[in-house]
Every structure is written in structure tokens, then in C-alpha cells.
């Protein structure tokens, strides 16, 4: 198995705090996926650089190409054979798309509101954090620029034309978000990850959305209190942090693709050969005159062979 990426990959993200590798949902999603799929990316925070205003974050740089947006970055990593979704069935892949849409439509507005529009949270947590990590004079521009973008996004997605007022939609977006959290909790159940024993891209997305709500020291957040009551979702976040982001433990290896293919092929061939041999022996026994068949009906055969009629 060769290391197919000759060019190094660099990921531009927002920095971390509150026990998280990054405070920014999209950056978290990409970092988590990189860990799950075993992709070696160098994470370079944009904190304290002019990129806090100019760059679209997160951004993956690989050789000549620059990829933005979590979906595109994950697709790019998959094409480079860093695929955490390798073992999913087509149906599970469809479920992944559906749940990501659920997060996007029902949880994102409340997430944006909690951090960027809620006056108390913005003044006490978000603005100081982003201002302290932007160089002068950007510390005056970056937080308000992001807050305006967040507000307009919420209003355009959820607001009622023609008068777009945030107070009218606040109730709805929070009740939608709480319902979304409940649905995720039902779906996860008692498992560690959403699809079996290894994390996939859906786990990366859910982690990216939930972890900031869970861990940030928000002065006032009904959403955070609601999330903290859903024990399986908080354990989900803590588990990923402990397994993939703790500095003292090495990461578990990702699902290895090529050797599994070869082994599976060999095993299937062996099983088929064995079953062919057994069938032939069985047929010989049946057709020989001194043996009466144990069962009148022929055994179902794995290989396509004509069934011999009992003598």
C-alpha cells in the first residue's frame, strides 16, 4: 500500500479553545474527517493573521489546488483515497445525505443565532474571542462582519417576507433545533458512532455542529442546556475528543481499503472452491447406487450446478 499523496496537505482553520481543536463548526468537521480517514493534514490556524478577514475558512491546500467548503474538502480527500465512508452501503450513504441536510436546515440557524445574534453570547463570548484572535485593526472588523453574515443568513433562510425581523423567527428556529437534537439522539441510540463501530463523514458533521454548542462557555443558552440533557450526544462528542484528538493517545487506524479487498477476494474464492468440492462429493454419493439419500430434496447449491435427482 503506497502513500499516494506526494504533495503535503495544509488545512487552514480557526484555532481551538474550550477543549476543542477548533471553535468553528466547518473547521471541526474537516479536522474530524481527516482524523477518521487517516489523512495527514497540517493544520494551520488563521488566528492572528490577515487571513481572518480575507480567507474562506476552512480551506484545504494541496499542491496547486485550493478547496473550500466542508463538502468539497471531504470529496477531495475521498478522491485521494482517504475515505472514512468506504464500508457504508448505498442506503447508508443516502441516509448520510439526508441527515446532513437535517443538520443544515434545522440546526444551523440556531447555531448561528446562539453564537452571533444572541446579544449576551455575542458580547461576552463570541466577539471577544474572535477579536482577540484577529490582528489590529481587523479585531474591529472581523466579528461584526461575521455577525452580519450570520444574521442575514438566518433571515433569508427563515424570515417571513416582506418584513424580515429576527424576533419573529427566534422561537421557531430554537424549537426546530431542539427537535433536531432529539432526532439525532434517537438515531444514535447507544452506539458510539452513527454507522457501526467506525466513524464516518456523518459523525464528522454531527461532531462539528454539536461540539461548539456543548463545550463553549455560553452565558445564556437554552440550546446548550437542551443538548447537555441528551447524554448520548454529549458522550458522542467526548468520545471523539478522547479517541481522536487527545495528545497522549495515537489515533486508531482508519479502515484500510486495498488489503481488505484482496483478502476478501481470496476468502470468497476459497469458500467457493470448498463449496464446489463439497457439492461434487455430495452428488457422487447420491448417484452411487448403494447409498440412499438422507433427504429427498436437494441441498441448495452456492455454485450454479444442476441438481441431481435422488436415486
Amino acid at each position, binding site marked *: 500500500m503506497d502513500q499516494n499523496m506526494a504533495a503535503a496537505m495544509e488545512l487552514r482553520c480557526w484555532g481551538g479553545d474550550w477543549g476543542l481543536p477548533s471553535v468553528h463548526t466547518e473547521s471541526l468537521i474537516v479536522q474530524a474527517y481527516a482524523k477518521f480517514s487517516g489523512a495527514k493534514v497540517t493544520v494551520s490556524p488563521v488566528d492572528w493573521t490577515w487571513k481572518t478577514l480575507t480567507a474562506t475558512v476552512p480551506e484545504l491546500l494541496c499542491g496547486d489546488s485550493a478547496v473550500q467548503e466542508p463538502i468539497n474538502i471531504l470529496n477531495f480527500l475521498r478522491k485521494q483515497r482517504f475515505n472514512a465512508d468506504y464500508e457504508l452501503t448505498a442506503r447508508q*450513504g443516502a441516509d448520510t*445525505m439526508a441527515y446532513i441536510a437535517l443538520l443544515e436546515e434545522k440546526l444551523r440557524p440556531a447555531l448561528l443565532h446562539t453564537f452571533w445574534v444572541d446579544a449576551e453570547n455575542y458580547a461576552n463570548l463570541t466577539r471577544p474571542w474572535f477579536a482577540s484572535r484577529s490582528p489590529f485593526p481587523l479585531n474591529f472588523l472581523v466579528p461584526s462582519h461575521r455577525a452580519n453574515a450570520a444574521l442575514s443568513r438566518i433571515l433569508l*433562510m427563515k424570515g417571513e417576507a416582506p418584513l424580515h425581523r429576527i424576533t419573529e423567527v427566534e422561537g421557531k428556529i430554537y424549537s426546530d433545533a431542539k*427537535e433536531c437534537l432529539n432526532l439525532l439522539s434517537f438515531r444514535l441510540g447507544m452506539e458510539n458512532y452513527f454507522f457501526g463501530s467506525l466513524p464516518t463523514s456523518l459523525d464528522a458533521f454531527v461532531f462539528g455542529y454539536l461540539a461548539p454548542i456543548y463545550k463553549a462557555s455560553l452565558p445564556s443558552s437554552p440550546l446548550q442546556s437542551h443538548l447537555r440533557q441528551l447524554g448520548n450526544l454529549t458522550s458522542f462528542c467526548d468520545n471523539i475528543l478522547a479517541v481522536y484528538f487527545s495528545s497522549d493517545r495515537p489515533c486508531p487506524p482508519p479502515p484500510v481499503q486495498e488489503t481488505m479487498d484482496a483478502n476478501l477476494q481470496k476468502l470468497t474464492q476459497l469458500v467457493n472452491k470448498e463449496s464446489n468440492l463439497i457439492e461434487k462429493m455430495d452428488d457422487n454419493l447420491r448417484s452411487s447406487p448403494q447409498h440412499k439419500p438422507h433427504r429427498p430434496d436437494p441441498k441448495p447449491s452456492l455454485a450454479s450446478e444442476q441438481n441431481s435427482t435422488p436415486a
Partner: protein
Amino acid sequence: AGLHRVFDLFTSTAAEPWPESATLYQPLKEDQILLSDCASSLAVQAYLRMCGLPVQVVCKANAEYMSPSGKIPFIHVGNQVVSELGPIVQFTKAKGNSLSDSLEDVQRAEMKAYMELVNNMLLTAELYIQWCDDATAAEISRPRYSSPYSWPLSKILAYQKQWEVRRKMNAVGWGGKTLEQVYEDVSQCCQALSQRLGTQPYFFNKQPTELDALVFGHLFTILTTRLTSTELAERIKSYSNLLSFCRRIEQTYFEDKSS
């Protein structure tokens, strides 16, 4: 304002039976209504038929402005006005009609997730094609949208709507997409729906739910609406189980014109 009305109806009208005079309002069918609104309206009509709730469809040129949330369609039941599929499903549930009550929690989570997939991808794609593709906007959307009004109001309203939708597309990250990318997104969405449906008659096997109504509304409308190109319909046609799904619902719930 629309939200308060929905809350009011929960507390006061849960016990009242569904009246015979319930009406559904949408823009004018022949000249005015656009793809996305037609799809949303058909989804609600399919849902109500699946519940066995009779409703009369009335076409009004100013339906969009009559609606409490500005979105089409809306229903007028008794003295309550409710718009959009989500609130309408909750409204009928308060009256004791629900298609998804028998689902388990995990299944309900899945159903809601797939409904958001349709809203996130199919509805957004319809809006994009209608208003962000210059050819479609000029030939179909603006003329149709402004058809009930005389100049200069027609021009103003059409361009205002186009501006609003383009702002929304930019906000959700679709502003920079090409038409080809949008078609590809629709294909992927249909592939996911096709995978989920498999060989079952409905998404949750034997009984239709609001998800079936929503998917039917969008797919059927796309298949039967004439646009500047047939590309969108062709993408859907490549999934045969989705085609038979639409045909099945059309035959089961829309063939008899008794309601």
C-alpha cells in the same frame, strides 16, 4: 404573525372536525404558478388526499400575499389559515389525522431527515433554475410571475422577486454554482431517494407518509412541467423506481375526481 396564528389554532380548534368547506389557495394554474410553488402545492394536496381530508383548490392571483407566511400553498380551514407543508402536517395532527404516528422514533428521525433533504436540494434547485438561470428567468419565470399585473407593476414585482431569491441563493452558498452543478446535485438527491425507496411501494413500506407526499409533489411537478430544457426531467427519469412511485401515487390518489 403567521406563527401566532398557528399556535392559536392548537389551543382552540383541536376538537373541531375537518369541515367540508376547507380550501387550498395557490396562484393561477395556467398562467402564473411557478415550478417550486406548484411542487409545494401538489405535495400538500397529496398529503391531504392521503389523509382522506377533502379540500377544494382555489386559484388566486394574489395567493402569495394572502398567505400568512408569504409561502404557497396555504389552507383555510374553519377560521384558521395555515401555510406550508410542515405546519399543515402539525395542524392535521392536532385534529387527529396523522400518517406518521405508527412510526418508531428512529424511523421518524429518518423521515424528517429525508424531508429536509428534499427541501435542501430539490426545492433549492427548483428556485435556482427558476430565478438564477437567466434563460429560464427571462423566458418563463418573470413573465409568468408578473402575468396578473399591468406594467410597470409587473416589471417591478418580477425583478424584486428575482432579487430576493438570488440573495437567498447567495446566502446558502448556491450563488456560485453553475447550472450543470445544480443538475448534478439533483441527480445525487434522486439517487439517495431511489436508494432509500428501493423496491418498496412507499418510503415506509406499506403506508404513505408526509415524506411520500413531499417527494411526489416535487418529482411529479418536475416531470410534468415544461422548462427551457428537459435536462432536469431526464435526470429523474433515470431512476425507474421513482417513476413508478410517482405513477402509483397519481393513480391511487389523483385518478378519481370525486373530491
